[in-house]
């Protein structure tokens, strides 16, 4: 299989995704960004899971910090979507935003274990596998 990402000597990450691959990334980045800002989005609750489950409410400052950092990563990923080369910081934004999208997809589709994953709809399973392949390829370089 052709490499999806490659590390250059200068430390930058080359994006070798084709148009179809970039379209998958664009969709994932966009959904994370919208979900973080829209409390009605189906992913919003997943992006706001408890920090300390023993308390009724988490510290609002921590919640705000999390929203801000997740939103910033998604914004940076969207802004660099068409770049051929990513800095390590930009590649980290891609990795974290794709990972947030992957886990949100799993949670809203009730994929809580391997059995649920194996029984998932083929289209959903294909999407999950695609994000996993992107993540694995990026993680190898970071």
């Amino acid at each position, binding site marked *: 299989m052709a490499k999806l990402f490659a590390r250059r000597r200068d430390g930058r990450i080359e994006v070798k995704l084709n148009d179809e691959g970039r379209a998958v990334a664009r969709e994932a980045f966009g959904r994370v960004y919208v979900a973080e800002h829209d409390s009605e989005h189906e992913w919003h609750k997943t992006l706001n*899971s*408890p*920090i*300390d*489950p*023993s308390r009724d409410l988490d*510290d609002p400052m*921590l919640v705000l*910090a*999390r929203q801000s*950092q*997740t939103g910033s*990563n998604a914004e940076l990923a969207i802004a660099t979507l068409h770049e051929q080369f990513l800095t390590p910081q930009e590649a*980290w934004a891609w*990795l*974290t*935003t*794709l*990972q*947030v*999208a*992957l*886990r949100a*997809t*799993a949670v809203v589709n009730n*994929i*809580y*274990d*391997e059995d*649920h*994953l194996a029984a998932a709809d083929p289209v959903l399973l294909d999407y*999950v596998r695609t994000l*996993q392949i992107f*993540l*694995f390829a990026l*993680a*190898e370089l*970071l």
Partner: protein
Amino acid sequence: MPSLKPLRAPDLTTTTTTSTIDEVERPWNVVVWNDPVTPMQVVVVVFKKIFGYADNKATALMLTVHHEGRAIVWSGAADKAQSYCVKLQVAGLMATIEQDAS
């Protein structure tokens, strides 16, 4: 006439109970939970990046999460535990904090 009774020294001993002291001093754990979709390599990279762990420590913790369903990845002061937990959640991992039981 002035009293010859000695002045009573103020009570400087603390009234804080032992259990309260324990509660304050017990460390807070950052817990990462297993999920069926996150690639193992991603978990290792996130642990290395956020905590600065060496590859073997990050891998060992990832395997604990994978096999036991959860792992305590850091323990210490409450504010730092909260900060680490937020960073892990921003990186897309399922993480919470809890106060050490012992």
